[in-house]
């Protein structure tokens, strides 16, 4: 059990380091938007989500209504519900109801991607470890960005802004080599996402909703064209 936990901690290190740069940007922006450093830190420690926090920040900065911040989070983070549902198919029997309530907190894009990429079933100890290191990285980065962000030159801030995309690319590109299905899913997701960005009418759909629509369509076409083999886990 302990060794599984430690393995999780170790697998979480690259995620944590990737999070450092992204959360640094968040801390920096939060303070620039008028929050105190401890407020930025609290948001990161209680939310542990990238896109949602940035969107929440803009609602706060504009003094938007509470219902707007609730809806923004609901839409942007709805993808986590899909991921949680997806991961229920991979967890082993060690996952009691209580542990699921606890680990549910740590369902981020990257933690999910690493956990679901395991060929074996995921234990509660492993999942806990896999959440702890990124949580520390996300909080530390936010704190540093909030306290020291304004000393960074603009060129460095611009460079840091691609860190999160680099991480995403590192997750979806390798399986594209192994199965054509993932390549097709990734291509459809990217094309549709561009359509929602650039085409009239479609570009009035909010960012959160458009991601859900793109994901459901791309994964749906993938499942229809390339159903995974029965009896064995898909090797992606």
């Amino acid at each position, binding site marked *: 059990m302990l060794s599984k936990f430690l393995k999780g901690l170790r697998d979480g290190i690259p995620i944590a380091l990737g999070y450092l740069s992204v959360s640094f940007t968040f801390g920096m922006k939060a303070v620039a938007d008028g929050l105190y450093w401890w407020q930025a830190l609290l948001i990161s420690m209680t939310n542990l989500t990238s896109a949602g926090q940035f969107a929440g920040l803009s609602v706060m900065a504009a003094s938007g209504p509470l219902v707007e911040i609730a809806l923004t*989070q609901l839409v942007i983070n709805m993808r986590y519900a899909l991921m949680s549902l997806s991961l229920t198919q991979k967890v082993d029997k060690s996952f009691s109801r209580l542990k699921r309530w606890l680990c549910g907190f740590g369902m981020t894009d990257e933690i999910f991607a690493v956990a679901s990429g395991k060929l074996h079933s995921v234990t509660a100890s492993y999942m806990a470890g896999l959440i702890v290191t990124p949580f520390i990285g996300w909080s530390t980065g936010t704190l540093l960005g909030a306290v020291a962000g304004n000393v960074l030159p603009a060129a460095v801030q611009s460079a840091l802004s691609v860190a999160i995309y*680099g991480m995403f690319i590192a997750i979806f590109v390798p399986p594209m080599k192994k199965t054509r299905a993932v390549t097709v899913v990734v291509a459809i997701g990217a094309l549709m996402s561009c359509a929602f960005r650039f085409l009239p009418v479609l570009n009035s759909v909010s960012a959160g909703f458009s991601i859900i629509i793109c994901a459901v369509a791309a*994964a749906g076409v993938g499942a229809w064209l390339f159903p995974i083999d029965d009896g064995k886990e898909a090797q992606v």
Partner: protein
Amino acid sequence: MSSLVFFKYLVVMALVTYLIRAVPFAMFNRKIKSRFVRSFLEYVPFAVLSAMTIPDIFFATDMLLSSVVALLVAVALAYKEKSLLTVAVFSCVSVYVTEFIASILK
């Protein structure tokens, strides 16, 4: 921002985000039989991540060229199965270098 207003935002934000993640994870307890649904759930992460990356990465940096370079560097390194960290760090470095060179040439 005043503490009371801030805490209202914080609680709403954190609660909504937590429930979206935890409720499906904690309450859904059985193996899905449908081959279609299992395949669908298998493909969801890749669909989400590609839709979140393209085209947003092109608007992330100060200039379009540097984000294109970052995308190419990241894809090349990811294709060679480098770690999350390596890919993230080198895409940041490539943005910095590209913008630095562009500023000299300008």
